[in-house]
């Protein structure tokens, strides 16, 4: 391997103009932008001195767009076109989103990521997030007086590849040069650690509006090393609001609310929740558009009782991260609290009880993520002084693997591997003269591929025809410092090299981003729809092939009555694959996948049993 040349310190960092760089916390509820000014990280404010911008986008009928505080007023009057908590939809399909029934939006199911139908047409979560990011970019450029060199954008540590890609795409769509995607708890640790010159092992407990992260970091002489991370990307203050909302519906004896009244009730629920942080009881009182009155009183005890399961739920990732790091609660020197929802007293008490110490709440939990991100941005553009050495070593939150026989996931990169990381694995052909091989990349901890997130499918073609088992196909996974994956495969046994390089399929290509920026986002949805259909067709083909093969080798594992519905679903999927209805096709794929789950499990058992009798150590 070649020598790596690194510039001498100060050599090309020699006197240069201060570059404008910002950190952006793109939150579920609130977004912020910060920068390092004269060596000190500060949040940038709007014209009225407010640093947080509510993550709300209102699409007006006349074609205008309102954002942040300006969009708050239409919350109730135009709920369908006033999008809140869009972060919950990033990189997600309809089936992934919780409490969808209580949301006033018109959803469209498109493969990979859902979309929302608004008065201004169909919008993807990426486009909606881009509106928020553009507003923050403009705020920063106005405040700093120039064009930005780049931005560090934060993401929940437990975001998977799909969610990260979506965030990156949104930032590029907003005209930002993304220096780095940074994990929110890591950003908080930087701000906290550099502020307090801390050393030792710390936990960061980040409960925001829509997401929960728990990261364990070791701070030693300027190095922030993440030991383990875990979380739940669908758990946050919103869920506490939802419990209160459901409770109010139960107790207020009102008719099922309209979309407008549902929003009213949700906003009231949030206000009540926040009030209960400082007072023992709170009135839940409002008049609905329907003319009905809600007049209830919520005590702290009521609220703590109904949300205790949510608080317990935060402890699950805490335990898992500790186990992965090989640590006990008592090994943690301090627990840094981040996110507005950590203000709730029962959350603080649960954390204190679990760790046996009072959590650290001395930094503003709303700002600390943006501040940490701005410090990283400042370093990445080369503004920091030479004596200001510190380094982040972050990890990948979820294992990456490939689908193998029987619908199992074989892990290639384990969770909590330090970034950047690359791992390779060799595979071979199983038929004589086979010239192509297909791969399915998945992310997640579960054994069955069906329970993991599907990231990409690709095929390596042009393998020289050889006897079965002679080809050597080397698949390499590489995850960069943003936590983003790329995969390549090549045949290595012959001089002839077939190789392919893929990015997961739901992300946008550079050309697509450029195109969307050019055409004012107009036609992008059509292109995406066409591509989505093609992808679904490829997937259907692959599934049909896999089924045919599995039935040919292990068909006797199924009784006749079990076999018939599978055959029927196969026939139907064949018909759907020939048509151009992506939604129907996707449903057909899901149906067949579900119907063959039991079959896959039986095949897995058989493989395991065979391995045990063969005394094969790999399978033991």
């Amino acid at each position, binding site marked *: 391997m070649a020598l790596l040349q690194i510039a001498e310190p100060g050599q090309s960092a020699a006197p240069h103009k201060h570059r404008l760089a910002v950190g952006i916390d793109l939150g579920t509820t609130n977004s912020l932008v910060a920068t390092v000014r004269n060596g000190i990280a500060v949040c940038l404010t709007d014209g009225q001195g407010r640093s947080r911008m509510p993550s709300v986008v209102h699409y007006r009928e006349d074609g205008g767009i309102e954002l942040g505080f300006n969009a708050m007023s239409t919350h109730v009057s135009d709920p369908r076109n006033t999008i809140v908590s869009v972060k919950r939809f990033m990189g997600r399909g309809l089936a992934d989103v919780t409490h969808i029934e209580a949301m006033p939006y018109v959803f469209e199911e498109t493969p990979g990521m859902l979309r929302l139908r608004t008065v201004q047409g169909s919008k993807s979560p990426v486009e909606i997030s881009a509106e928020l990011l553009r507003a923050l970019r403009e705020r920063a450029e106005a405040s700093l007086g120039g064009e930005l060199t780049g931005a560090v954008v934060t993401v929940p540590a437990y975001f998977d590849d799909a969610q990260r890609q979506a965030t990156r795409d949104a930032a590029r769509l907003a005209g930002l040069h993304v220096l780095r995607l940074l994990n929110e708890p890591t950003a908080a640790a930087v701000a906290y650690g550099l502020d307090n010159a801390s050393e030792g092992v710390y936990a960061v407990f980040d409960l925001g509006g829509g997401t929960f992260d728990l990261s364990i970091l070791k701070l*030693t002489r300027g190095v922030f090393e993440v030991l383990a991370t875990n979380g739940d990307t669908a758990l946050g203050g919103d869920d506490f609001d939802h419990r209160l909302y459901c409770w109010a519906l139960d107790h207020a004896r009102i008719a099922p609310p309209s979309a407008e009244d549902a929003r009213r009730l949700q906003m009231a629920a949030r206000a009540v929740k926040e009030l209960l942080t400082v007072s023992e009881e709170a009135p839940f009182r409002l008049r609905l558009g329907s003319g009905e009155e809600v007049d209830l009183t919520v005590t702290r005890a009521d609220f703590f009782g109904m949300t205790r399961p949510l608080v317990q739920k935060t402890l699950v990732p805490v335990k898992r991260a500790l186990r992965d790091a090989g640590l006990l609660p008592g090994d943690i020197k301090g627990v840094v609290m981040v996110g507005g929802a950590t203000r709730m007293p029962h959350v603080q008490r649960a954390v204190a009880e679990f760790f046996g110490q009072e959590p650290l709440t001395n930094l503003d939990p709303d700002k600390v993520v943006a501040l940490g991100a701005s410090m990283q941005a400042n370093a990445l553009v080369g503004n920091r002084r030479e004596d200001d050495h510190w*380094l982040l070593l972050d990890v990948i939150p979820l294992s990456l693997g490939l689908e193998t026989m029987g619908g199992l996931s074989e892990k290639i990169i384990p969770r909590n591997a330090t970034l950047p990381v690359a791992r390779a694995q060799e595979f071979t052909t199983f038929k004589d003269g086979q010239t192509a091989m297909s791969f399915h990349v998945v992310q997640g901890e579960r054994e069955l591929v069906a329970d993991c997130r599907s990231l990409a499918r690709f095929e390596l073609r042009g393998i020289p025809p050889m006897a079965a088992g002679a080809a050597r196909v080397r698949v390499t996974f590489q995850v960069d410092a943003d936590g983003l994956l790329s995969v390549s495969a090549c045949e290595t046994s012959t001089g002839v090299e077939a190789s392919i390089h893929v990015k997961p399929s739901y992300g946008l290509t550079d050309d697509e981003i450029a195109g969307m920026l050019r055409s004012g986002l107009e036609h992008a949805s059509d292109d995406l729809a066409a591509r989505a259909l093609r992808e679904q067709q490829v997937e259907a083909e692959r599934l049909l092939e896999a089924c045919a093969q599995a039935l040919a080798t292990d068909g006797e594992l199924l009784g006749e009555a079990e076999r018939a519905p599978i055959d029927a679903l196969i026939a139907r999927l064949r018909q759907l694959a020939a048509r151009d209805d992506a939604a129907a096709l996707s449903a057909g794929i899901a149906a067949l996948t579900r119907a063959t789950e039991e079959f896959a499990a039986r095949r897995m058992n058989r493989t395991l049993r065979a391995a045990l009798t063969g005394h094969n150590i790999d399978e033991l």
Partner: protein
Amino acid sequence: MSVDLSLDFFSLFGLPYRFNLDETALDRAWHALQTEVHPDRTAHLPNSRGAMAGALRVNEAYAALKKPVTRAQYLLELTGMSLDAINGNTVAPEYLMEQLEWREAVEEARRVNDVDALEQLALRLQIRTDGVIAQLAEELDGQRDLEAAADTVRRLMFLDKLRLGIDDALAALDN
């Protein structure tokens, strides 16, 4: 300042070729190297903007030396032993029974969702693993009996896999 990435993993970190290793020294050397090669350090330089090769190699080396199993495998590899010989698929018959017993105990505890039993097993497994690691140290650093060491590495691989199984089972019971 340049880092020679062609060095073997021990030399890269300036550590002796020994199985018993000073973990603090390893961590410190890892941090020091990453401070040189991490893409964040060069992101602003026009000629090497965020190059990743160095950081990838250093992380690969660290991951290999950090865990006893992979460290032992790597040491054996350095002696010229082939990967097939190290990871060979055979299990000495006297260990096979032990392995099957462990497996059954874990399966059973898992089946009945018995957290205490799983934690007990994890503890016993830790003690067993520590014993095997001590034996490996003796074989690699002491007697230099490489054949025996290769056999012990395979047992350690099995124990590691078992540990992952227990952890997964416990993780499933966290909620």
